[in-house]
């Protein structure tokens, strides 16, 4: 077998594998899409019949035309963007301190982070509610941010610390010899070298805050202040649900998440690492 043929065969095999996996992964999503194009969708139909008989965009126009939908969308976007920025910044700093610096009490604090990872947040909802009340953060959109950031820090710090540890220590030492303090090493070494990891953090943090439902529902009362997941949940009735509407709204809600994903997964290209390692 010549080299080129071998290459072609391996490429074909790759595509076959990927395509097979893609079908399985995408199928339920297609079902959601097809239901969102059906007009009679209070009862879900057999998932094997994917193509709607009379496809219609009615559900999308109803969702987009419903009162305040645009407002909820913007509310969610504002909260998610601010929270994501803070989450990534703060957890990157914390992760750096844990992974690259030596300081007294580090082990204890890191253990506290792991503890936070394992505590089910649902159980914290009443103490957190009382805290939010005492801090006057109930019923306000900006009031969501500290809670979203605080809750997401453990996960993202842990994730980033794992990546920061991979940066060869020689690089740090080289920069330290050049007189760079920890702050500079963080900004001009760790952050650029960990672009893929930071990208991952952005993607997860955005998804987490954009989708958050239980806390937002518990603390927000003003109809104008609500976020998108609450609006979507309200399409589910007590006795029946227009799944077409729910699914159409869900699909609209997925779009920003996918945009963030597509933009930030571009960071996943071997950038500085290669050159930096060589030197």
């Amino acid at each position, binding site marked *: 077998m010549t080299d080129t043929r071998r290459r072609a065969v391996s490429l074909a095999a790759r595509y076959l594998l990927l395509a097979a996996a893609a079908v399985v992964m995408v199928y*339920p999503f297609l079902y959601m899409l097809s239901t969102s194009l059906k007009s009679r969708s209070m009862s879900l139909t057999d*998932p094997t019949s994917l193509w709607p008989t009379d496809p219609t965009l009615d559900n999308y126009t109803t969702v987009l035309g419903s009162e305040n939908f645009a407002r909820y969308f913007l509310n969610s976007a504002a909260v998610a963007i601010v929270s994501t920025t803070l989450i990534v910044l703060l957890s990157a700093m914390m992760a750096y301190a844990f992974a690259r610096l030596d300081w007294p009490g580090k082990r204890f604090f890191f253990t506290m982070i792991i503890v936070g990872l*394992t505590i*089910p947040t649902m159980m914290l909802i009443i103490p957190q509610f009382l805290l939010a009340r005492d801090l006057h953060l109930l019923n306000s959109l900006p009031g969501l941010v500290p809670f979203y950031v605080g809750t997401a820090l453990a996960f993202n710090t842990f994730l980033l610390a794992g990546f920061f540890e991979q940066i060869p220590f020689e690089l740090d030492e080289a920069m330290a010899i050049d007189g760079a303090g920890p702050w500079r090493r963080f900004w001009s070494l760790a952050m650029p070298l960990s672009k893929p990891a930071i990208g991952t953090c952005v993607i997860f943090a955005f998804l987490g805050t954009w989708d958050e439902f239980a806390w937002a529902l518990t603390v927000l009362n003003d109809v104008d202040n609500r976020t998108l997941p609450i609006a*979507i949940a309200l399409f589910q009735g007590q006795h029946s649900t227009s799944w077409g509407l729910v699914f159409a709204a*869900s699909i609209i809600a997925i779009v920003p998440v*996918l945009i963030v994903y597509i933009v930030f*997964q571009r960071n996943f290209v071997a950038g500085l690492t290669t050159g930096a390692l060589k030197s």
Partner: protein
Amino acid sequence: MLPGFALYALIMLYPAVQTMLLSFRDWQIIPGTPSPWVGLDNYIRAFQDPVFVNSLVNAAAYTAFTVPLQIVIGLALAVLLDAKLPGRVAFRVLFYLPVVTSWVVVSLLFQYIFQSDDGLANHVVVDMLGLSSDNVSWFQNRWTGMFAIGVLGIWKGIGWAMLIFLAALTAVPQELKEAASLDGAGAFQRFRHVSLPAIRGALAVVFILLFIGGFNVFISVLLMTGGGPGNATQVPLTYMYQQAFKFLDFGYGSAISFSLTALVLALSALQYWWTRRRMAA
């Protein structure tokens, strides 16, 4: 570092301590109502409660089933998509779709797939594979129900694991891979000797996070079986939710959640320490 940790302590640790304190009480939610101190009673009750013990077993089984498969499949997809491949962004998006689709929606969908009469799962198991002659009533039995919930967990988690692995793989210098390729190393060997050592850290992180996540499985169980039939598919968090928010027994609910936390913490610490040692070796 400091502002981050201060916020974290305020938002997470402080409420956590409060919750822990109420696990030692017969806590009444209304302010001003006396909540008698009961010491360890709630914990003793939990470990004598067959439903709670079974829920731990279910969560352990779920974790054992879902974590390895998410890692293996997620890693395989990441390796395939790490190479320069036309259309890889499209594939990356397709595999990530389950992660972004809401739990409510996917749980519903999987209920339909696993429905007892003529769902897709029975179509595959009975008609295509011939593993069973009768349609399986997936949600009527403990292990078939847990299996269905596990399949959903894997399906939803693969893209998540893939993303972290992709990020880790990108950090592997292309030159190393190419050098290995010139040496005539096969794809698998290249992966084993070049990529795998470089992503050990990510592997440990993914493993720990999935492990913790597995024991904390909640929404899918709540929406798909509600813990039934007769508590058979109950997991610690659905049971906690039922006790605390449905029956208003918050003392017991928080004892359940802290028992779980302690257990998961001990197991994670063990693993973390173990993987660290292996990495250092």
